[in-house]
């Protein structure tokens, strides 16, 4: 079992980043992408992924659209908005700042 907070609060950043590379993904696709691109290190849990998606949707960073697949089942596809792009840039630079700071601490001590 992976630790519940293994993403260290970076779920938003990962979702935004993945959607910026590959628009129109459904929830399961986003989850798989996090798992695959991190080489099975990071896992987004269903229990926190959907509330996070819905929250970001309400915040206007991503937008969702229902599409009908060939199987006849409907799926909800997410894509990045302009506000989401701006948010991604902000989160990315914040992440860079934090990791480089942490690295500095690790090197000097």
């Amino acid at each position, binding site marked *: 079992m992976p630790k519940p907070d293994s993403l260290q609060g970076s779920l938003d950043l990962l979702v935004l980043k993945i959607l910026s590379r590959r628009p129109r993904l459904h929830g*399961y696709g986003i989850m798989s992408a996090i798992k695959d691109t991190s080489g099975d290190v990071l896992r987004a849990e*269903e229990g926190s992924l959907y*509330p996070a998606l819905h929250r970001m949707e309400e*915040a*206007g960073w991503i937008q969702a659209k229902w599409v009908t697949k060939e199987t006849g089942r409907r799926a909800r596809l997410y894509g990045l908005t302009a506000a989401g792009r701006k948010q991604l840039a902000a989160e990315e630079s914040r992440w860079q700042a934090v990791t480089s700071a942490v690295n500095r601490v690790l090197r000097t001590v």
Partner: protein
Amino acid sequence: MSLWSRIVNVVGGDRLSREIDEEIESHIEEAIEQGRDRSEARRAFGFALRQREESRDIRLIAWLDSLRADAVFGWRRLKKSKITSAAAILSLALAIGACTSAFRLIDALLLRPLPVANPERLHTVAFEGPSAADGKTRTYDSCSYPMFRKMRAAVKEQAELIAVSMYSGSTDLTYGADQDMEKAYLQYVSGWMFGSFGLRPTVGRLLTESDDLQAGAHPYAVLSDDYWTRRFGRDPKAIGRTFRMGNDLFQIVGVAAEPFTGTETGWVTDVFVPMAMKNPRTLASLNNFWLRTLVQLKPAVAAAPVRERLRAEFRAIQEERVKGFPAQSKRDRERFFQEKLLLEPAAAGRSNMQREYRQSLAALALLVALVLLIATANIANLMTASAAARAREMALRVSIGAGPWRLVQLVLVESAWLAFLAAAIGALFAWWAAPFVVRMINPPAYPARLVLPADWRVLGFGLALASAVTFLFGLAPALSASRVKPAHALRGGEDPHSRHRLMHALIAIQVAFCFVVHFAAGMFVSTFDRLANQPTGFSAERILNLETVTARSQPPAFWDQVAEHLRTVPGVERVALVGWPLMSGESAVGNISIHGEPPTDVFSDFVSISHGWADVMRIPFIGGRDFRAADTNPTVAIVNQAFAKQYFDGENPIGKSFERVEPAGGSARFEIVGFVRDARSRDQMRWPIRPTAYIPFQSIDPKGAFQPIGRGTFVVRTSSANPLALASTLRREVPRARSEFRVSNIHTQTELNQAATVRERLLAMLALFFAGVALLLAGLGLYGVLDYSVLQRRREIGIRMAIGAQAGDIARRVTVDVFAMVLVGGVGGLALGMASARYIESLLYQVRPTDLAMLGLPSLTILVAALLAALPAVIRAVRIDPVRILRSE
């Protein structure tokens, strides 16, 4: 946009839930397609319901959603018990409607600022001093025009003074021939009033200061928007038209924009004309008090210094006026200088109606507020009883995770349903009731017209009232619901005593308030009864008063001719002449001097009558004779008992004489030829009948020539029981006798007599109605509580009966607590009533709060009502079948 979508999602809450579910399902399907195990995929998702709730809360406003759910649930509960809900809502609606009506009246008459610029700066000058009649302090508003001008000059720098004539009935005017006379309420106002008030014309122009400079030189008139609409259908061509009033021709120059209708709140002015157009003699008189002085303070000027300046000026005016009264007695002079000028805020305008109805409306508002509290207590009891039945439901809600606040909200939302439905129905009631009450304040000579807008003020009051009521009856059950302990409640145990204590306390409060309402109603009814049954000393039966005016003043002989003609009309029994009808509100007074001594302090009323008048009015002679056709004013008089008592120590005054002394000097001597019983000439029913001297209708000047007369009243006693049946015939016959004569008003004497007690009748009627409502509500409440407690205790009663308790014993056990509460409430109500009685003392007449009847009658009524209300529950308790009850347990 996000907030909006969240609000929208509240409305479409079900659709949202479905979407979230569908998304979760599609996720799981995808996982299975990717080769994962179905149950593993589901497990990975966790508790789906919680997922959905969490996502829902993100995508909508959670509290709004829960409110919506509670509202839907509350509505279903109301629908479940239709009859109880309807009864609760209707009783509350009646009470809320009555409160809203009272607020509408009080707001419209006393609180609502005039639609003028800076109403908060508007004040009015009033005078306070001991009354000549009984020495009590009285306040009056009127000034003379020279007084007004002096006061205006004195505070020129600090304030603008505006004169307006006081309301005194409507005026006759015509836009065409004399035959087409019509009535309008015409008001004389200072020309600069419109400018000072920042008013604009709808069409044409308004009056200005230059329209009010020279007496008689500015015959211009401005209409109110309301009158322009009613009379001219908003025709702009009305501007420039002329009308004639008396001998003066006025030209309409403009219409004042809505919603200004004058400053005499309670009456709506139709036509404004400049002060300068008032008859020049009145304008010049220092002693003719006929106008009201409004004071508009300049910006940043305080009221107190202005008042002091006005007081100094008033003192100077008094000093000057007193020089004109050389014959004034010492006590009169003292009283004269005791008068004090007051400066009262008048943002809501100022009228006599305000002075007269302020206290009555306050008393009425208090009564309806008590009725509202009684209705509220009923619903609180109902909610408490239903909360008891719902203890299990509440416990279940707590068990599955509802917090205390969520339960408070649930119960309060239900209460709000009741209150707001009731407020909506109450608003309809108030929409009808407030104008109804205004129509009742409708003495024939002074029809009241109160502007009663239904705007945000009334709406705000209604909403505030509904919210307050919601908390009053909803909070206690809501809090007790939130304190429910699941384990305790689900086991079926509860503490019924705390509920009973609350319900019993509410019963006591209801009885106390009910008592106060009945106590007050009893005093108002008995006041009205006593005033209405005051002996008038004359017979009003079949009497019709034709108030008549002539184009120009006519010699007395012509008046006699008309009277003679009216006697020939079929259905007319007797006709006589009088200056004005008895009890019409008009009066004339004079100082009386006996044997050339200085005049006494007590004024006498003077009424001019023709011969035969006492006979028409059925006022019996004690001695002497009636006037003869040749008698004139002065030289002879008929006096009443009060006159003889006041000036001749009650001796028979026939053959004696007195002098009528003018304050400005000069006197006229009268010989008393007749002595009649007391008859009421004024409409002040609370005062004793005043000393009255009747003088001949025809007057002569010092040279002995007859003086022409411009107005008078033909008093007709008809042979048919309904004198009004002859009204239109007589109206036609008067000008047929002499074309210069025209009937201005027709009133039956009964109508005038009733008008004298219109306020007391209104108060008595409404108080009685609300006393009935209060009794009904309190009775229903008592019935409900007793019935509920019998239902709760049926097991106990069953056991008692099984072991041999008698019916009487059961009845006593069931009712003793409640009747103790009725007693406590009664005593509390008594104390409350006695304490509040002094606030309504001035509305009462010959009624004392300590009278046995005043206290006994409400007590008895409430006791009987309580017994009746208890009966069904007692019968139900006694009829309990112990076998069936015990078996069902």
